[in-house]
């Protein structure tokens, strides 16, 4: 399938994929997935078949990622990325929608839920803390290393922080690095510090929709205590920990994530559940 595009309110062309195998004669809820920093919505491919038979699934390429270009100096911020999500929903004609994100994408998804309580039906927050600066690593040092060695070499050096090398299939790591490595260093030099600056722990209680927070239990980047910020502050939050897994659960165990997310969505959707 080819990427589709819509024009955001600041003029930037945003790319997205839409997958929909729902029954054509009945309405279906819309789900928007927001990928992590580096790579693109392609990183969610394995989730689609789990979800798209019941939901209309849109995957956005964040600014500077995938087929969405890196915008001008004033056009990259977390509120702007969250607005892109809402404008995609507008473009798709979805007054209300579910949103889920992975890592940096979950920050964007959470921001969309904070700013648009009337529109976001539920939030899926995978590997989400209330701001990445509380983590165990200085992400700004990542940018330095990426600048020195290139993104692929950086990812290869730090891959054990991201995936459990004992359990992923052979071939996964090379694919993951190739896919994530497509993001330009110029984009990450702006994107990572911006994410690091963005702090939203205090806003978490404003998330009024049902939330599923899924945390990696063996993450060298954030402790489970950091991840616990969500269930502690969001009024209606289910918290699931994947024991022993490092940061990138949405890539390394996509089927498990998508199955848990599907179960959560079915519980919280207006879509007919008798199917």
């Amino acid at each position: 399938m080819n990427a589709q595009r819509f024009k955001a309110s600041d003029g930037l062309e945003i790319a997205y994929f839409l997958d929909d195998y729902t029954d054509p004669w009945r309405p279906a809820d819309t789900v928007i997935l927001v990928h992590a920093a580096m790579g693109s919505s392609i990183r969610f491919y394995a989730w689609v078949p789990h979800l798209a038979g019941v939901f209309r699934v849109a995957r956005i390429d964040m600014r500077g990622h995938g087929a969405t270009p890196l915008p001008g100096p004033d056009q990259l911020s977390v509120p702007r990325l969250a607005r892109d999500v809402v404008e995609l929903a507008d473009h798709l004609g979805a007054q209300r929608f579910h949103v889920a994100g992975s890592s940096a994408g979950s920050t964007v998804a959470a921001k969309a839920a904070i700013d648009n309580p009337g529109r976001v039906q539920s939030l899926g927050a995978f590997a989400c803390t209330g701001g990445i600066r509380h983590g165990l690593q200085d992400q700004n040092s990542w940018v330095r290393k990426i600048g020195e060695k290139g993104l692929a070499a950086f990812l290869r050096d730090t891959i054990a922080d991201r995936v459990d090398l004992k359990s992923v299939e052979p071939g996964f790591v090379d694919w993951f690095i190739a896919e994530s490595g497509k993001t330009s260093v110029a984009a990450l030099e702006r994107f990572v510090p911006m994410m690091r600056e963005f702090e939203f722990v205090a806003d978490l209680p404003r998330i009024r929709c049902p939330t599923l927070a899924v945390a990696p239990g063996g993450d060298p980047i954030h402790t489970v205590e950091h991840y616990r910020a969500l269930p502690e502050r969001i009024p209606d939050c289910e918290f699931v920990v994947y024991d022993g897994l490092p940061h990138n659960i949405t890539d390394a165990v996509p089927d498990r994530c998508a199955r848990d997310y599907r179960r959560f969505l079915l519980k919280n959707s207006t879509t007919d559940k008798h199917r």
Partner: protein
Amino acid sequence: MPLSSTMQEMTASDGLKLAYAIDDFSDPWGPQETLILIHAAMGSSRRLYKWIPILSRHFRVVRPDMRGHGRTQIPGPDQLSLTRLTKDVIELADHLGLKRFHLAGSSAGSIVAMRTAIDNPERVLTLANFASTPGLKPSNIDMNKWVNGIKAKGFKSFLEETIEERFPNVQDKGFLKWFVEESAKTDVDLFARFGPMMKEVDYTADLHRIKCPMLNVMPGHDPLGSKAQYEVYRQHVPHSEYIWYDGLPHNITDSVPERCAEDLLKFLLKHKGRA
């Protein structure tokens, strides 16, 4: 809601433009296997949308629109024959660079699939036959009655009048309406050529040439084909497997699509990795 698969197009060796959909959410590393899935007479590849979420995580699924159906052009007077339809399958595989592929079809689409497997044993990895005799000659379909009924009343009225016979097991009015609308998109003159052509076909004598693994999924209560008529493969393709859907009439691939796709997936996974 629109179905989302993007249609692609290729040109057959006789110049006709053939449309097909590709849905693929399989892991991009490691060897990839492709399933070509052929819809029944009337309508198009869209009739198989519900199969995609079940199959496409494991296989690349390619759904052609048969000649005269869906977005594939209507063939000229000399451009419609069973041989030509099987050639389209092989040319589609060539176009996609597939040396070997899995093949499945529903009803008339299965007549094409089986003939393709008979004539191209080196190309077809596995064969799945849903609800078909080896050509319509050995079936109970009164093709003249169908063609005359469609010509006299138009597709929509003909289908509306016979819908209860097709789907006594389906209560969902939305589905029935959609099925009629989707099938009624078929060109009446095309069907008046396509149906009688299939009614001339009987390749029972060639079935013994099917050497690849074969699955037969058969409706157990079909006025169009008796159990004895559908059991012909037991004799000629002794290694083939049978699954009977007790009590169900002909259109199993539309009325219980998920059950069909799950049985197909089990069969395919058993034979995966032999390409």
